[in-house]
């Protein structure tokens, strides 16, 4: 076990836990954002650099600070480590600059993007970005390619997190797409057009943090905040069968895997569940999906409120605010 202090809050975690996961155990505002790290995908992370944190003390044995900001998603904690996330102006500055870098070549076509409303980059930009751009050059564009009949690729929106290649490597039995090219010319591509067709390839859509990979069957059907998300399941031989149905009236517009509070899928679903069962009667409906009240999808979305759960949430918030007050930047 290792004791680590993040933004003034001490926590004991298993050896080998990364700083990001330790912060997630604490929860609240100190959790670094992550655009490329995905807890259920091995070897992911370290690329987008939005999760940079300052390690003010390396460990109890070697208390020197680390010279550079560290990618928290790939740096394991050491006993006695002291980490600054939101309490370090340097870290906030670095996050702001990474958001700026990610956005300079992003088309910002949110008004016509199917991902809008559930996009990690949108959330990140709202939280850490600035409202203005200093970039006046031409944005980079790519030739359009068709990667398959189920998934639409918009390469201009891609932030090269490599998550989709990890999904193809680790969840499907055959990876047919990858990153080709170098530098800012690198792009997702397939060797043969329309090649992405695998029982689990649809999960690429769910792991994509932006609108680069979207569901072709849901394309332009509805804004996501006009739909009514329902938790549902069915008996599936290939996967867990636990999904979210995005419905409008009796119509099922989209089926996706369930994501946790960090927008990460823990149980991947198969393409049959995702694409072939778009009738409510195929599913056992569990009830309305829990949507965070900060999300735009939460508008007009009514859930049966669980008083116990609410109380827990309020307690957690109070606990977190206390932690904030105790942090070095807020000595009062």
């Amino acid at each position, binding site marked *: 076990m290792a004791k680590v202090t993040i933004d003034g809050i001490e926590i004991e975690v298993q050896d080998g836990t990364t700083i990001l996961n330790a912060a997630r155990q604490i929860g609240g505002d100190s959790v670094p954002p992550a655009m490329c790290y995905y807890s259920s995908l091995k070897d992911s992370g370290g690329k987008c650099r939005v999760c940079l944190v300052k390690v003010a003390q390396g460990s109890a044995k070697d208390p020197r600070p680390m010279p550079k900001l560290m990618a928290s998603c790939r740096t394991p904690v050491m006993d006695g480590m002291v980490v600054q996330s939101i309490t370090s102006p340097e870290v906030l500055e670095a996050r702001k*600059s990474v958001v700026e870098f990610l956005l300079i070549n992003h088309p910002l076509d949110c008004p016509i993007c199917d991902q809008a409303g559930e996009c990690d980059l949108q959330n990140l930009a709202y939280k850490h970005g600035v409202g203005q751009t200093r*970039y006046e050059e031409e944005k980079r564009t790519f030739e359009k390619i068709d990667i398959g009949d189920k998934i639409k690729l918009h390469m201009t929106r891609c932030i090269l997190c490599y998550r989709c290649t990890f999904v193809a490597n680790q969840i499907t039995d055959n990876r047919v797409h990858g990153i080709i090219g170098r*530098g800012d010319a690198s792009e997702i591509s397939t060797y043969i057009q329309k090649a992405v067709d695998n029982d689990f390839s649809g999960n690429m859509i769910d792991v994509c943090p932006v609108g680069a990979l979207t569901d072709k069957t849901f394309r332009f059907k509805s804004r996501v905040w006009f739909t009514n998300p329902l938790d549902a399941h069915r008996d599936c031989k290939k996967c867990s069968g636990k999904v979210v149905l995005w419905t409008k009236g009796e119509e099922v517009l989209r089926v996706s895997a369930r994501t946790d509070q960090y927008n990460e899928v823990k149980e991947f679903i198969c393409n049959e569940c995702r694409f072939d069962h778009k009738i409510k009667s195929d599913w056992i409906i569990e009830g309305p999906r829990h949507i965070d009240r900060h999300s735009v999808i939460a508008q007009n979305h009514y859930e049966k409120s669980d008083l116990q759960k609410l109380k827990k949430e309020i307690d957690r918030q109070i606990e977190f605010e206390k932690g904030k007050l105790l942090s070095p930047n807020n000595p009062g």
Partner: protein
Amino acid sequence: MGKQFLLGNIKVPGIHTYDVYRKHGGYNAAEKALKTQTRDQVIEEVKFSGLRGRGGAGFPSGMKWSFLDQKSDKPRYLVCNADESEPGTFKDRFLMEKLPHLLIEGMIISSYALGAKTSYIYIRGEYMYVLRILEKAILEAYAAGFLGKNILGTDFSLDLYVHPGAGAYICGEETALLESLEGKRGLPRLKPPFPAIAGLYACPTVVNNVETIASVPCIVNISADLYNDIGIGKSTGTKLISASGHINKPGVYEIELGLPVEEFIYSDEYCGGIWKGRSLKAVVAGGSSVPILPANLILKTAKGEPRLMTYESLSDGGFVSGSMLGSGGFIVMDETTCIVRNLWTFARFYHHESCGQCSPCREGTGWMEKVLHRIEHGHGHMSDVDLLVDIAKKIEGNTICPLGDAAAWPVASAIRHFREEFEYHVKYPEKVKDPKHFEKEPFVSEKLERAVH
């Protein structure tokens, strides 16, 4: 002329062949090390010699060797980094082309010291003809019994392979090099683990520059004591400098570390002064990645001491008034050089060579290039100069590998020392329309001119 440890026999005809090389004392060091010294003795010797990595970072080689995980029961590898791609650096090509056996001898001794049974030379794809020279030399060494099973009757065996890259600057970064050697995309790994623990095929690996490895035979030959005597302080021995640019005698020179920069530029023995009788404007002292220094700061440090060709003296003053020895790519610029154009060229290189793995480098290098292109072609705004400084600051230190830093340092330093020139480009766009705008009429700092009158 100072001592020449590496290039002493360079003028001997046929020195690239085994017979001539052997006749001139070649492979004596390998024989001495293998027959009379233990592995630890060789490592101690290299440690004591004070030899520092010649690839750019200047990390003490002996220390790097001692980090190698000796407890692991996995095979150990030595990889020679011959992916010399830094603009302004061409010393390794010269060394491998003329003295292939010196590198092979160095590989034998170093592999022996590290306990590596298989070693690789990773050479950049553009050096295909050098690869052929090396492969021929390796065959000769096999035939002479210096490579293969039970070398010189000892129980040490070594197989040596040359592997060409496919033309990427990033593969000179040691972990990207290992990825490429394994047959994957040349993307730098996240550290830790460092190669000394998990490198090639996840086995303990040491990656050394060509010149570093080629210096080992000489250390074994003349003993670390004598090697140590050359140089000043922690910069010991000799270093190859690739001198290029506006000088009378460009080329590869072997210098004793501690030589004054002024002597190196103006003495007839080395660069022979600035060409066409012009005056010195700026020097990039260690390959394109290191900060550029104006004439007054390259000859003398900010404290007024003469600047020497050592790791310490060149970095005196930090990045405010200093630079780095780097890989020894010494680029000299005369008064007609446009710093903005030069910087744009560098930025274009880093944009092209960024691997695209992490966002600050992938997006930032392209952005800097586009802004510099604008300024150089007379379409810049005054705010662009500060914008460039800001982008450079935001890339530096936030990337996976040092390429981000290498792209940011030249931009930050050029603007620090030559800000007026950038502002001139913005103020007088019609004057910079001609690509050779400072050739007829060198740029004169307004501030300086006012001070003179």
